């Protein structure tokens, strides 16, 4: 199955497999969870990330049980402060 991942406001260099605009298409095995995907992306460890699947939030404690489906759009955004 294929999913699309959008990484908003990344810090530092874009993680591998993402285009310069923070988007990547990933081919996944059936049963892959949101936690699996987030574990594969090299995100800064000192920041928390919010995850949306098709625009709906998946809280951190539910990521391991959230199986992805073909065509899902995952948005990851760091919980940054404004100013």
């Amino acid at each position, binding site marked *: 199955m294929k999913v699309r991942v*959008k990484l*908003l*406001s*990344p*810090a*530092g260099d874009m993680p591998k497999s993402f285009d310069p*605009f923070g988007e990547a298409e990933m081919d996944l095995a059936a049963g892959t969870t949101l936690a699996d995907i987030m574990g594969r992306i090299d995100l*800064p460890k*000192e*920041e*928390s990330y*919010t995850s*949306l699947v098709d*625009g*709906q*939030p998946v*809280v*951190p404690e539910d990521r391991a049980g959230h199986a992805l489906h073909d065509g899902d759009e995952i*948005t990851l*955004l*760091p*919980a*940054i*402060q*404004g*100013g």
Partner: protein
Amino acid sequence: MGGWQGKILRVNLTEGTVIPEKLNQEWAEQYLGQRGLASKYLYEEMDPSVDPLSPENKMIIGTGPLTGTMASTGGRWSVTTKGALTNAIASSNSGGYFGGELKMAGWDLIIFEGKSPKPVYLLIRDDDVQLLDAKEYWGQTVWVTEDAIRAKHQDPLIRVASIGRAGENLIRFACIMNDKDRAAGRSGVGAVMGSKNLKAIAVRGTAGVAVHDPARFLKIVQEMREKLDTHAARNRLARVGTHAMMDNTNAYGSLPTRNSRDVQFDGHDAVKVKTAHTPRRNDGNPNLISTKACFACSIGCGRIAKIDPDHYSVASEEAKIKYGNAIGGLEYESIFALAPMVGCNDLDAATYANALCNEDGMDPISLGGSISAAMELFEVGAITTEDTGGLELKFGNAEAMTKVTEMIIAGEGIGADIGLGAQRLCEKYGHPEFAIVVKGQEIPGYDTRAMQGMGLAYATSSRGACHMRAAPFVDDFTHVRTDGKAEIVKNTQDVNAAKDNTGLCAFSGNAWDMNDYAAQIDAACGGGWDEARMLEVGERTYTLERQFNLRAGLTKEDDTLPDRFLKEAAKSGVAKGRVTELDKMLPEYYELRGWTKDGVPTNETLDRVGI
């Protein structure tokens, strides 16, 4: 003693006197500096019920113990007074170079009292302090005033904090500007300065700032800088600035749009951070052409922009010269307020309106929130083209947005009414429900239906709706819930108050915890500072601000949110169908603070925090 200079200036504008005084060291050790220490002086010296635009209101310029030192981000200074917009305590914090210069001139605070019979400015050259005639600068912009004062005194290193025409005209959301595009922005502190006939404060400092233990201070400052400079958030702030936040709030559904009728903006692509970084076809430049840093800062989040040379705002030769070159660029708060909030998808129009704010000293958050309220009034027919002089003041009309900004500064036509701020404007035109304000202050760029903790933070902020008084961002961006928010808001309000009092920038808090601040304060000031003592200072500050507001006449009824957030469900985003459930959070918050159910600190609480 180090960190503090041990001296304050008392300027009586009515009498024309300038008197140096010894700093109240006991208060300094209770409140550290800046926001907290100035609030203590204000609370002890002034009746909080005074009219903010009367001579009885005092205005205190504050530095912190780390302002003017080499601690990273140690350039902050603040203005504490009773806010012209809010009738609550105001403490507006700015960066740039003015604060460091004032501290290096040898002063911890300046207390302005009374009202000058004619326009004046204060010139400080270390211990040499004079009140001088400002007749030639009155009516001039901030940009002209800064350059003219430096030229007059033949010293390019003089730093100036001043008001533009907005402050002179008592626009309720006027700022005090320094270094041309840095602002003590919120709550109308510029109107207070204007009401005193005080045009500018010009300062040149050569005295330096001593610290308690120089070797330890140097070591800890270097360690802290390493920790800050390698942090992911610092990288992001330097590279894309705070503008990057808009991608988040738009995706999440917490981007205030069209006077908060919507929570996501269909024109986001045209005004997002990537667009600001993308070179244009006509001149090969992007909107964002460079960055800059404030005094001692190793983050460098400041933006420098260039308006598209073909944009209508720089069509005239005069406008090309003033606004068509490198100018202060957009932060998240200014782009949210001057684009989604007013429904405009024109990056250059927002950049131009923001430049007008810098040039004449206005808060772009309140400007956007007041114009968006006017637009909603226009759309329901409460304001007509007869009122606007023919202007179609509709959401999305960028030319109308920038034109009305010019009218606000000049106090012309409908501009004079919009310059009252959203609350007074909407009351005047019969629709108070269109004012998206808390304690009279327009909201910053976070819709509270998706970010429930921010809703509680707005409602309980001592200076009205504010995104800098508390930091519920991490939990708000992961959980749309009310559980646990009261504790997060209370604790981060105390943390942020302690940080503000140090003289360091809030953005250092992305990398540093309270132990890191305490270590720098202890090396600079001596006296045994640790995390617990810093947090005591923070809680004491927040409680004192509460006491000020209660004495000013504010009550629990003021700890609320616009009906739009409490009664109208979000139309989209993660909180689709939800309202802000303030009633589920506020009682717990009062209890955690040790306040009664009516929001009044108990005697036990006052004793505990040392008030």
